[in-house]
C-alpha cells in the first residue's frame, strides 16, 4: 500500500537520469568523430586521441595538475580528518558555531570568493614577509587544500558519528591513551571513508578552474584553467578525447570502490 506509483517512478527516474547522462554520452561519442566540427558525425576516427598525445602544452599542464591534486588531496585528508574528528567527538566547545561555519563555508561559498581572498592574503603576506613570492605551485596547492578540507570534514565527521563508540571506550578503559585509540581503533575503522575522501579531493582539485586561476602564476597553468581557456570560445575535439579518458578513469575507480564496499557490507552481514 505504501509502495510508490510505478509509472510515475519510471518516468521521473528515466527522465532524470537521461538529463544527467545524455551530455556525457554526447561528449564520448563525438570524441571518436572524424570531422573537426565536432557537432555533425562524419565517421569513426581516433584522430583526436592522436592529437591529444602530441599536445605538449596540455600534457605538461596535466602532469602539473596530477601532482598538485595528489598533494592537495593528501593534505586535505590529514587536516579534514582532524577537523572532522573534532566536530564529531569533542561536543560543543567555545566558538563551536564559528568553527562549524568556517569548516563548511567552502562547500557553499562561490569559488570566486575563496580564490580572491586567498590571493589577497598571499599578496599581503608577500608584502610583509617577502614570502611566498611569485604565485605558483604552493599557492594553488594551499587554495585547493582549503576547498577539499570542507568536503573531507563532512565525509569523515558523518563516518565517525556512525561508529560504535564502545570500541573506543573499551580501549580507553584498558589504559590506552586517546592518541593511541585514535590511531589504533578509529583510523582503521574509517579507512574506507578516508580512501573515498582522498579520491573526491583528488578529482575536485583536478576539476577546479576558479581557485587555480586566481592562485596560479606565469608558467604554472594547471589542466582545468588550460582547458577552460581553450573551450570558452567553442568546441575543441581534443578536449572531448581528454574528457572520455577522464570519465573512463573515474568511472572505473568509482565502480570498483562501490563493488569493494558492497562486498565488505555483505561480509559484515
Amino acid at each position, binding site marked *: *500500500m*505504501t*509502495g*510508490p*506509483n510505478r509509472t*510515475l*517512478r519510471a518516468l*521521473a*527516474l528515466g527522465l*532524470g537520469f537521461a538529463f*544527467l*547522462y545524455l*551530455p*556525457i554520452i*554526447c*561528449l564520448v561519442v*563525438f570524441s571518436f568523430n572524424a570531422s573537426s566540427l*565536432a*557537432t555533425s558525425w562524419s565517421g569513426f576516427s581516433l584522430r583526436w586521441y592522436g592529437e591529444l598525445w602530441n599536445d605538449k602544452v596540455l600534457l605538461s599542464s596535466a602532469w602539473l595538475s596530477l601532482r598538485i591534486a595528489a598533494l592537495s588531496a593528501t593534505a586535505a585528508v590529514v*587536516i579534514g580528518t*582532524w577537523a572532522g574528528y*573534532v566536530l564529531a567527538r*569533542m561536543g560543543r566547545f567555545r566558538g563551536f558555531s564559528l568553527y*562549524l*561555519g*568556517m569548516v*563548511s*563555508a567552502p*562547500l*557553499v561559498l*562561490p*569559488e*570566486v*570568493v575563496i580564490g*580572491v*581572498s*586567498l590571493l*589577497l*592574503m598571499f599578496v599581503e603576506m608577500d608584502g610583509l614577509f617577502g614570502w611566498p613570492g611569485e604565485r605558483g605551485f604552493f599557492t594553488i596547492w*594551499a587554495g585547493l587544500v582549503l576547498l577539499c578540507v570542507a568536503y573531507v570534514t563532512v565525509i569523515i565527521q558523518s563516518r565517525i*558519528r556512525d561508529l560504535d563508540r564502545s570500541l573506543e571506550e573499551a580501549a580507553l578503559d584498558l589504559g590506552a591513551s*586517546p592518541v593511541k585509540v585514535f590511531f589504533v581503533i578509529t583510523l582503521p575503522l574509517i579507512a574506507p571513508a578516508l580512501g573515498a575522501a582522498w*579520491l*573526491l579531493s583528488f*578529482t575536485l582539485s583536478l576539476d577546479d*578552474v*576558479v581557485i587555480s586561476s586566481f592562485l596560479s602564476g606565469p608558467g604554472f597553468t594547471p589542466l*582545468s584553467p588550460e*582547458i*577552460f581557456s581553450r*573551450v570558452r570560445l567553442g*568546441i575543441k575535439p581534443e578536449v*572531448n578525447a*581528454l*574528457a572520455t579518458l*577522464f*570519465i573512463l578513469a573515474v*568511472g572505473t575507480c568509482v*565502480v570498483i570502490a*562501490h563493488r569493494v564496499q558492497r562486498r565488505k557490507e555483505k561480509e559484515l552481514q
Partner: protein
Amino acid sequence: MKLAWREFRPSARTLAIVPPYAWLVLFLLVPFLLVLKISFADLKFGVPPYTSLAEFGDEAVNLTLHVRGYVLLFTDSLYIETYLNSVKIALITTFYCMLIGYPIAYYIARSAPAVRNLLLLGVILPFWTSLLLRVYAWVGILRNDGVLNNLLLWLGVIDSPLEIYRTDLAVYIGMIYAYLPFFILPLYANLVKLDLRLLEAAYDLGARPWQAFLRITLPLSRPGVIAGAMLVFIPSVGEYVIPEMLGGANTLMMGRVMWGEFFTNTDWPMAASITVVMVLLLLVPLALFQYSQVRAMEQVREGTR
C-alpha cells in the same frame, strides 16, 4: 609544584581542537578580513595595485577609507542590475532543481535497497566526473549547429536552428544540470530515513496517497529540502564558469563581473568590494544552511542515544 604546573598545561581536548581551528582562521577568516580591508583601499599603480589604509606621517597615523567601490556598487545601474540578475538566475536554478530533483530523490529513497544503491551511484557518478567537462558537453549540444538543433531539424520539428547557446536559457540549463546532484543527495539522505509506519498509519486512517505525501512526507522532508536548496542557491549566485561558457555577453552575473574587474581591469579594490557585497548578500542563506546542518547533526546525536 607538580599540580600547579599541570594547571597551566592545556588539556588534551584543547590540544585537539586548536590546530584545525587555527588553520581555518588563518586560511578562511583572515583572508576574508583582508578582502574587507582592501575593499576600502584605492587603486594605485604598482605592486600590489592598491593603497594601504594607514599612512604614517607628520607624527600621526592617517587612516583613509576609500568608499569609491561601494558608492559605484550602489549607484551604477550596471552593478545593481548584475546583483538582481545573479539572484534571479540563482533563484530560478534552485526552483527547477527542486522541481526535477524532488521526484528523483523521492523515488530513489522508496526503491528496494539493492536498486537504491545502484541509483544513488548513478547520481553520484556525474558528481565525480569533471564539472568543467560536463558543462563543455552542453556547448556541443546547444550550439546552432549542435546535437539538439540537428536532431530537431532532422525530425522536422523546427525549420531553422533554435538560438539557445549564448543566451540566458543556456545558462539555466547548464546551472540546473550542474547543481542537480547537490539538491538530490541531501534530500535523499533525509527521505530515506522517513519512518514508513507514519505513511501506513495515514493510509489506514483513509488518506489518499497524495494527501499522505502532502501532509506527512513533504513537511518531514523540509530540512533536506532546505539543505539542498542552499547547496544550490549559494554557489549559484557567484557562479563564474557556467555563465562564461554558455551565457551571452549580456548575461550579467556577479562572479563574472568580479572576475572582469580583477583580471581585465586589475581594479582589485573594486573586485574586493563586489566580493564583500556578495558575501553580505549570502549571509542569510549561509545562516540557514548552517542551521540545517546543526539540526541534522543533533538529529543524528539523538538517534544514537
